[in-house]
């Protein structure tokens, strides 16, 4: 058990705050996407009401190193033995909409094991659990916005959305960024997965180029010889309408 997550403090320097840019059409999922059945009862039917950004939207919780334990970034050493599966290193940068690093921001991940089973009481997929794998990690980005996790490649798994439905292998990501409006929860996929075309969760994003932003790249530079394959996944959070002067 880890200690509860306590934000270190509120976001300082409100004097420099400006609003955040809105998303371009097609670059985010359609909230109501009937092929993903659960959206039929859970997506709003009324249009969202446009909210000009106030201090409430432009500030957000800040987390610190005290929220991270030593092994949180390495999902392969959290138990007495080694988990089964293909060892991988997932790393990348967190950037804002202008390409600037987002430093010291919390990145949380969770995933299925190599057999496609989550260590979760409600996952009843008849694939083996791995006593050496929980599938939970967290890290803070460094000063240049870099994060890195050591883990194992998750398996694909079936779900009951439609006949013979399978989710492509993925890792869930959760990020905060500097403000309430930069909060992002998403999923990272692996290159060349044949299940992409059949997955309504990925296909809910209208723009093909936008969908590709969720697919990690194999990366020989971060591949560790005789140990683990490297996958690179850069994440872009929303940028400000006008960037205040640096420093």
């Amino acid at each position, binding site marked *: 058990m880890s200690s509860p997550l306590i934000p270190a403090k509120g976001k300082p320097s409100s004097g420099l705050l400006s609003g955040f840019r809105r998303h371009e059409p097609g670059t985010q999922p359609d909230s109501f996407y009937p092929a993903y059945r659960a959206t039929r009862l859970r997506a709003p039917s009324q249009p969202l009401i446009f909210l000009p950004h106030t201090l409430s939207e432009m*500030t957000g919780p800040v987390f610190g190193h005290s929220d991270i334990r030593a092994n949180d970034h390495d999902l392969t050493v959290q138990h007495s033995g080694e988990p089964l599966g293909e060892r991988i290193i997932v790393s990348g940068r967190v950037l804002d909409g202008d390409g600037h690093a987002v430093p010291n921001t919390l990145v949380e991940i969770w995933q299925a094991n190599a057999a496609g089973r989550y260590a979760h009481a409600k996952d009843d997929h008849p694939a083996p659990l791995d006593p050496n794998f929980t599938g939970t990690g967290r890290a803070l980005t460094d000063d240049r916005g870099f994060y890195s996790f050591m883990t194992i490649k998750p398996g694909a798994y079936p779900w009951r959305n439609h006949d013979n439905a399978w989710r492509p292998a993925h890792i869930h990501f959760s990020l905060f960024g500097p403000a309430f409006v930069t909060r992002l929860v998403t999923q990272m996929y692996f290159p060349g997965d044949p299940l992409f075309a059949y997955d309504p969760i990925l296909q809910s994003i209208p723009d093909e180029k936008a*969908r590709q932003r969720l697919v990690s790249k194999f990366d020989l530079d971060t591949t560790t010889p005789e140990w683990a394959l490297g996958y690179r996944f850069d994440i872009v959070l929303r940028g400000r309408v006008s960037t205040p002067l640096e420093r």
Partner: protein
Amino acid sequence: MTNCTMDWTPTPSQTTGPYLHLGLTDSRSISRVANPGANGERVWITFRVLDGEEAPVPDAMIELWQANSEGNYEFGDGTSDGAAFAGFGRMATAEDGSCTFETIKPGRVPGPRETTQAPHINVSVLGRGILNRLSTRLYFAGEPANATDPVLALVPEDRRATLLAQQDSNRAGGWIFDIRLRGESETVFFDV
């Protein structure tokens, strides 16, 4: 790679899926937004998430972000509240679609063009079937400042009540806030 093509379009959102607890709440939930040392009127707010058929949503997560009792988001090191006030909370919903946070009623925060906002809590709803995080606001029923709040003024009058938490007659300091994701009395969600 993203870096080489200078493409800084924000990364798309995806659902948390049904197993969000593993990553976000099993050992990482925060039900107490304000610890006992924090200044302000102490409240316990019960959220209840319902789907388009009014069925409870047992696999959602609620996140809160709010100002302190002085209407300030710059709490933390330099202020009297210090570590007593987190300003942030998150909990998974239970089988009945509910979760209860302990916090303090926030103060009034400056709004646009010399206005002052009524006490409110910024609320996110995430979960299975929710592809884009839903953002709403909780206001307190009976609060006189609601009448001049610049954000409530953006909401059609007949839908404003969906943003008002109601006092819980069974509990001193208790409030209840129902979030209806879809349907006739659907909660107002904001494009933030």
